[in-house]
């Protein structure tokens, strides 16, 4: 074919028209080319490979198939999928709805009337029954009903049952996350390998979790507690090795369990933790330079703030050194310490830097913000000093304590596995000296203070007891209702792990002489956890020198003659009653 004929010149306007037509051709080539380019770009570019996040609406007929598995930090499967079939129907293709409904209801054990109504409503898609057994599958196939079909489906399975229930959460009908990490990491899990997503690895260690749950469950049942929370926290990676909330549930059948069992008491409940807060008060006063381990505090009689008396549970009726006040859990001593600073803004700032003024950043959907006092007159400063008038979740609490005994820097905790190199740098809270002092004070408390029930031979531990009167909404503090807790550091000379045990309203029994104190109820649980978990985590028994170094800092006060201030650094002054 002759493309650009020039065999006859023709008139001028014909010649010009030929040129103009060539311009038009070029324009069209360009336009068609860009349409084609766009077509290829749209089908191969970012949009085509962009993961399409499934809607969380129920029953939109798009179940999540191939959802990523969830593993514990050692690779044990915590959640996976089972291939099953579901029965679906195209109601517009079902010939005799009455007959079909009757037979299907028979084979699958369904309500015939409801099924018939659904088939008669029409449309192109209806679920008949989700996730059927092989026997039901054979029955449906034998029926051979037109318009009824099997569709590959998946069942989310949690082989560990109750063990990791609150961290994992559970999924709904279309395998969409409804609670726990399943909900929080929905985008990360949905689609799974087909979308290039490997299994999600948690920081939880199933072996540790098993010990923690068993030990806590024993105490939970024995003391008839309303609830319990136990945590093992890695202080270096700031990751949760174990998180147990009791009562718990089986995520395989979560929706049939009582909803109270589904509440995560470690992250979704806030408690006034009482004496556990004395860690913060003491660290605050020491770090602010307002007090030293050598200072003495007047705890000889109850302290009055206005007409509000402050008593000690383990009263000594004398002046206490700062380590004594901490180890004997003296409320009066704590108020004396906060008096030395008497600056609500600094106190608030300190707690805020520990993350206690905001919701924990942990990857769980049901986290609660702390309940904070609205105003901070001196009475509030005083009660917060010994852990009342402020309520925080256990998760918030361990994140804060870890900052004080690890390296003095605050970092948010995680339930996802991370190596040391992935730990964020964090924000500084206290100086290294304060960290050393706090470790020693915690050791002292388990060695000869209120936490001696958690003293162990194998490991050098530190800890703090807490027994908080429980406030009930609208009724104030309820007599006899307490939250008993124990926080423990392992090993205390070079901390690797934090163990927190919190019992909600335990009832004392004969063996505890009717006491509900954290030292009697929660501390033994922590001790058992440490005894059994230590070897699992490959923790060597503490060498005798470690204890010797701790004891070297311990020197009985010669007398209250004021010479102690000249004692050299590292040699604290503590007077302890026989």
């Amino acid at each position: 074919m002759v493309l650009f004929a020039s065999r006859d010149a023709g008139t001028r306007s014909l010649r010009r028209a030929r040129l103009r037509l060539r311009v038009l051709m070029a324009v069209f080539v360009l336009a068609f080319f860009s349409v084609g380019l766009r077509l290829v770009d749209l089908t191969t570019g970012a949009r085509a490979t962009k993961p399409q996040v499934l809607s969380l609406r129920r029953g939109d007929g798009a179940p999540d198939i191939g959802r990523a598995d969830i593993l514990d930090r050692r690779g044990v499967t915590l959640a996976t999928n089972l291939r099953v079939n579901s029965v679906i129907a195209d109601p517009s293709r079902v010939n005799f709805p009455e007959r079909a409904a009757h037979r299907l209801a028979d084979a699958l054990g369904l309500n015939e009337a409801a099924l018939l109504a659904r088939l008669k409503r029409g449309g192109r898609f209806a679920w008949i029954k989700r996730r059927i057994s092989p026997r039901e599958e054979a029955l449906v196939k034998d029926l051979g009903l037109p318009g009824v079909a099997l569709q590959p489906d998946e069942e989310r399975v949690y082989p560990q049952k109750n063990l990791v229930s609150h961290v994992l959460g559970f999924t709904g009908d279309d395998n969409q996350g409804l609670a726990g990490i399943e909900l929080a990491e929905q985008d990360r899990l949905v689609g799974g390998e087909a979308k290039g997503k490997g299994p999600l690895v948690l920081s939880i260690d199933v072996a540790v979790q098993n010990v923690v749950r068993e030990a806590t469950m024993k105490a939970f049942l024995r003391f008839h507690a309303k609830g319990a929370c136990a945590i093992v926290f890695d202080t270096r990676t700031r990751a949760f090795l174990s998180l147990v909330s009791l009562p718990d549930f089986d995520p395989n059948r979560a929706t049939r369990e009582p909803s109270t069992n589904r509440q995560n008491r470690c992250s979704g409940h806030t408690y006034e933790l009482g004496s556990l807060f004395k860690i913060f008060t003491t660290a605050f006063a020491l770090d602010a330079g307002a007090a030293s381990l050598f200072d003495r505090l007047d705890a000889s009689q109850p302290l009055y703030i206005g007409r509000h008396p402050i008593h000690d549970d383990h009263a000594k009726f004398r002046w206490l050194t700062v380590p004594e006040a901490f180890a004997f859990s003296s409320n009066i001593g704590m108020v004396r310490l906060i008096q030395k600073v008497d600056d609500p803004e600094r106190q608030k700032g300190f707690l805020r830097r520990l993350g206690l003024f905001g919701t924990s950043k942990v990857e769980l959907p049901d986290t609660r913000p702390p309940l904070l006092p609205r105003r901070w007159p001196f009475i509030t400063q005083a009660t917060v000093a010994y852990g009342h008038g402020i309520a925080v979740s256990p998760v918030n609490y361990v994140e804060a304590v870890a900052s004080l005994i690890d390296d003095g820097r605050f970092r948010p905790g995680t339930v996802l596995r991370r190596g040391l190199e992935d730990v964020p740098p964090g924000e500084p809270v206290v100086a290294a000296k304060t960290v050393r002092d706090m470790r020693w004070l915690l050791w002292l408390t388990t060695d000869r203070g209120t936490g001696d029930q958690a003293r162990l031979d194998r490991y050098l531990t530190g800890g703090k007891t807490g027994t908080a009167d429980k406030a009930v909404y609208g009724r104030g503090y309820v007599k006899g209702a307490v939250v008993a807790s124990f926080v423990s550091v392992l090993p205390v000379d070079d901390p690797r792990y934090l163990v927190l045990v919190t019992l909600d309203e335990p009832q004392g029994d004969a063996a505890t002489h009717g006491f509900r104190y954290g030292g009697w109820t929660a501390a033994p649980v922590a001790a058992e956890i440490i005894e059994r978990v230590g070897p699992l985590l490959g923790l060597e028994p503490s060498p005798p020198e470690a204890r010797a170094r701790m004891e070297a800092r311990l020197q009985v006060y010669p007398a209250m003659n004021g010479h102690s201030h000249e004692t050299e650094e590292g040699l604290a002054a503590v007077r302890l009653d026989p």
Partner: protein
Amino acid sequence: MTVFSRTDRSILGQWWWTVDRAMLAGFAVLALFGVVMVLASSPGIARTLRLSSEGFFIVRHLVFLVPATCLLLAASLLAPRGVLRLAVAMLAVFGAMLLSTLLFAPEIKGSHRWIFPFGLQVQPSEFVKPALAVVTAWLLARFEGLAGLPEALLAVGAVVLVLVLQPDLGMTVLTLAVFAAQLFVAGLGWFWIAGLAGMAVAGLLGAYALFPHVQARIDDFVDPTTEVYQVEKAMDAVASGGLFGKGPGEGQVKFTLPEAHSDFVFATAVEEYGALACLAVVAVFATIVLRGLVRVQACEDRFVQLAGAGLVVQLGLQAIINMAVNLNLMPTKGMTLPFISYGGSSMLALAFGMGMLLALTRRGARLR
């Protein structure tokens, strides 16, 4: 193919050896693909509209396809003078109907475009469009240079006035663009071309200022955070199709894509047959347009040249605008994809136009 001998002097024999068989084959391929696409895309729409049968659009499409094919072939048999006569007659008849839309047409989706003679839904502007292109070509070709411009302007102006009053902006733009292309080919001076381009921009700005729905569409297109539902769905369909498509009948997004059988049939096609197959469709359109322009260029007759160019540009522009809208390159504009979208009566108009194009691009075609 030796259906007709070279020496066959019958009407059909002459036609066979002079008609552009590449374009003819292109039309056939597109029409066949159109049938496949209407089969795939229209049942969902019929169901959504609660029509009596899912096959409603399929049956109508096939029913109109038969007369449309006959019309196209019959029109392509005409000599240029016949084409001109047909165009003048059509312009008279459908021009009158177009005028009557202003008086009788009920309001549908905010505009008076359709009338219903004998229970048939007809959009007269579809028929006026190709007829007008041929008639203006004749008016321009009567004199050397652009001496025929005033009469042509008058004809186009009258039609455009009615279109703006309906209002049917898409058709207005298309009509003006075709006329502009004809003027360009007819040798309009570059100074005037620049002026026309300026006027086009001014016109678009005016439409933006005057018509709220135009404003909304352009705002939605420019603002990356808002996506029109149809375009969003079309994008989903395209992404879901990928390079190789989901397979015939396997499309899922098409069930929720509005106008999947007409304005957004291209997106449906990508979902089911993939980008590669649709590139072939683009290539077929490009081939037809370029073939048409090459044929027109080789032609010695000014009327044939201008009329042919007008009709080719009409087809090409409509295809490009539709595909560009489907691929979110342009703000949404109600325009069907020639041959492939579900047609109904507009398919007849297309057959008229393309039949005339085939007639004009026959070898040796000339008015005088």
